[in-house]
C-alpha cells in the first residue's frame, strides 16, 4: 500500500500493466520523452522504450484512428489526448468507427483500446483546456465512458479499462490530479467498469456525481446538518442504475451534480432513469447543480460556472424544504 496522488496512480497502473501485457503501447503527444504534459506517463518510456511509448505527430485524429488499427492488429493501444478540448478532431473516429467495429463486423473484429483524456476546469488554463465532454461520448453506443474521482479508483478502473474487451474512454479530472493522496495497493486489483460506489452513507438526500465533482459533493455533505448520501457513478456508460435506485429508495430525494453544461447532460439521463423506475419513491423533485449552459468560460469567470459546495448546500436546503 502506498499513498499516491491521482496522476501517480495512473502512472503506476500503466507501468504495472505494461509489464504484464506486452501488447500495450502508449501513444500520444509528448507522452514519451517529456512524460506527458501532466507527467502521467513520466518515466515510462525509459522503462519500456520508444517502441512502446510513442511520441506521435500533433494529430488527435491520427492518434485515435491509428489506435483503432493497432487494436485490430492485436496491439493494445492506450492513447492520450493531451487536453479535453483537443479530442473533438478525433470524435469522428470514435463515433463512426471505434464504437461500431464490433457491431459492423457482426462480432468478428473488435477494438479494445483506451483513450485517456485529462478533463475539466479548475486549473485556470487557456481556452479548450478546461472542458467536460463526457456527455458527447456517453451518447455513443458501443463505447464505455469512465470517470474516476480519486487515486484508488483511478488505478483500479484503468487496469479494468486496459483489460476490457471493448473501447473505453477514460476521463481523468485534472483539477484533482495532485490535490490529495489515497492509499493505493501496490499489487494487482481492479475496480469493475459499470459499478457505482456509495462514498458516504446517508438517509435524507442522495447526491449523485462523478469525477472531480464528487469531492465537492463530499465537502458539502460533510458540512451539512442533513444526512447526505453521496453516490459516485465512476462509470457514466454503462450506468449503474441499481446503485442509484437503491439510494433513491432510501432517501427519496436526489441532487445530481456535474461540471458539464446542464441541458442534455448525463444528469438528465440519471434523472430519467429515476423517473422511469422509481418515481413513487420521490419526496421532492430531482434537482441538478451543474455548469450552466454556457461555453466554458476563460479563467477569470471559470469559478462562477463550476459547481461548488455553496451551490450544492443551497440545493440540498431547497430539496429538504420542499
Amino acid at each position: 500500500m502506498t499513498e499516491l496522488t491521482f496522476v501517480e496512480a495512473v502512472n503506476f497502473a500503466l507501468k504495472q500493466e505494461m509489464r504484464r501485457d506486452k501488447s500495450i503501447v502508449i501513444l500520444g503527444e509528448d507522452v514519451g520523452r517529456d512524460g506527458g504534459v501532466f507527467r502521467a506517463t513520466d518515466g515510462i518510456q525509459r522503462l519500456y522504450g520508444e517502441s512502446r511509448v510513442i511520441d506521435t505527430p500533433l494529430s488527435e485524429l491520427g492518434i485515435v484512428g491509428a489506435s483503432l488499427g493497432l487494436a485490430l492488429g492485436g496491439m493494445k493501444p492506450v492513447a492520450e489526448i493531451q487536453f479535453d478540448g483537443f479530442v473533438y478532431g478525433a470524435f469522428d473516429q470514435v463515433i463512426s468507427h471505434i464504437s461500431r467495429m464490433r457491431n459492423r463486423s457482426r462480432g468478428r473484429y473488435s477494438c479494445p483500446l483506451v483513450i485517456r483524456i485529462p478533463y475539466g476546469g479548475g486549473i485556470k488554463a487557456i481556452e479548450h483546456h478546461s472542458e467536460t465532454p463526457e456527455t458527447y461520448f456517453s451518447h455513443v453506443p458501443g463505447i464505455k465512458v469512465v470517470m474516476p474521482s480519486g487515486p484508488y479508483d483511478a488505478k483500479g478502473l484503468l487496469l479494468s479499462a486496459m483489460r476490457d474487451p471493448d473501447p473505453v474512454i477514460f476521463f481523468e479530472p485534472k483539477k484533482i490530479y495532485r490535490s490529495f493522496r489515497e492509499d493505493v495497493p501496490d499489487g494487482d486489483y481492479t475496480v469493475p467498469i459499470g459499478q457505482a460506489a456509495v462514498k458516504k452513507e446517508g438517509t435524507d438526500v442522495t447526491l449523485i456525481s462523478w469525477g472531480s465533482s464528487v469531492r465537492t459533493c463530499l465537502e458539502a455533505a460533510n458540512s451539512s446538518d442533513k444526512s447526505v448520501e453521496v453516490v459516485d457513478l465512476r462509470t457514466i456508460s454503462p450506468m449503474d442504475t441499481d446503485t442509484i435506485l437503491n439510494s433513491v429508495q432510501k432517501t427519496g430525494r436526489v441532487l445530481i451534480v456535474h461540471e458539464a453544461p446542464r441541458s442534455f447532460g448525463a444528469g438528465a439521463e440519471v434523472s430519467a432513469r429515476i423517473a422511469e423506475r422509481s418515481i413513487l419513491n420521490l419526496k421532492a423533485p430531482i434537482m441538478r447543480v451543474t455548469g450552466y449552459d454556457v461555453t466554458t468560460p476563460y479563467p477569470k469567470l471559470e469559478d462562477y460556472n463550476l459547481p461548488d459546495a455553496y451551490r450544492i448546500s443551497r440545493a440540498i436546503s431547497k430539496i429538504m424544504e420542499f
Partner: protein
Amino acid sequence: MTKKVLDKFSVEWMQVLDENGRTDRKLMPKLAAKTVQKMYEMMVLTRVFDDKAFKLQRQGRLGTYGQSIGQEASAVGSAMALSKKDWIFPSFREHGVFITMGVPLAQYFQYWNGDERGNIMPADVNILPVSVPVGTHIPHAVGLAWAMKMKKERSVSAAYFGDGATSKGDFHEALNFAGVYKVPCVFICQNNQWAISLPFSRQTAAKTVAQKAVAYGIPGVRVDGNDVFAVYRAVKNAADSARKGNGPSLIECFTYRMGDHTTSDDSKKYRQQKEVDAWRKKDPIMRLEKYMIKKKLLNEKKKVKIWELANSIVDKAVREYEAIERPDPTDMFRYLYRDMPKELKDQLAEFQDTEKGKSSTKGA
C-alpha cells in the same frame, strides 16, 4: 514506353539578410528607411512585451503564456507585408502580429490573463480571436478569402500556424480547398522546430513544410524565418499575387522556439541547451541591428532610445491592464446567441440569485 515523369518539383529556400547583417541586393525588397525602422521598433516592442509577459506570469500576475522570443522576424515581417484591410487568423504565438497591427497591449495582456474581453479587437484591426486547438482555424482563413473573392474585394486572408499544425488534417484540407478554389489566402507557417517536445524531424518525414504545397498545386517556399526581409518579401509577394487573383501560397518561416512551449512547460526535459545556444547567434533582432548600423539607420544612442521607449510602452500597458476591473460574471451568458433564449434567461436569473446568496453568506 510505360513510365514517364509527369511532373518535377523543387523546394526553394530564401534568405535576404544574413547573420552578419549583410543583404542580398537582388532579393532585398525596396523599403523606405522608416519602414525598416518600424520593423525594428515592432520587433523590439514584441521582445519587450514577451519578456514582461513571461515575468508577470512567474509573479502570478498573468495566466499561462507562450513566449515568442526568437520568432519576432516571422511575426513582424509578415504583418508588415499585409494591409490593415487583410484578415488575420492567428494561432497562439503571434504576439508580434498583434503588436504590429496595433492591438492595445493592455488588452492583449488581458487575453493572456484569461479575460475574454482581451479578444475584443479595435474596429480597424482585422485579427480574429486566437484559435487554441492547433491548426483548426486554417480552413476559416480559406473561407474568408473565398468570400473576398466572391465579393470581389481586394483583401486577402492570412492563416498563421506552427509546424505541429501541418500534421493535422485541417491544414491539408484547407490547402486543398484553397488550391481548388484559387482563393486569396496566404498560409504562414512559423516552423519553430518544436511542437512542445516533438522536434520537426519527427513531426514529418518530409524535409520541409514548404514542399507540402506541391501536393495541393500551390506555390510553397521556405524562408529564413529569423530574417525579417526574407519573411517580408515572401509574404508581400504572396499577398500581391493573391490580390491579383493568382491564388494562395504557403510560406514556411524556418525559425526557432527559443523559450519553453509555454510557462507550463520545461524544455530542459527534452532538448539540449547547446541547440538553443546555437540559435541565439541567429537572433532576428541582433541581425537587423547589424544591418541598420551598417546602413546608418541606427546608432547606439538611437538603439537605447528605442528599447527605452518599448519598455515604457509596455510598463504603461501593464499599469493599464492591472487597473482593469474584473469582468461582469453575467458576461458568460451574454454572447452565446444574439437573442437570449428564454431558458437561458432563466438560468441567468438563477445564477444571479445564487451569487447574491453566496455574497450575503460570505458577508455574514
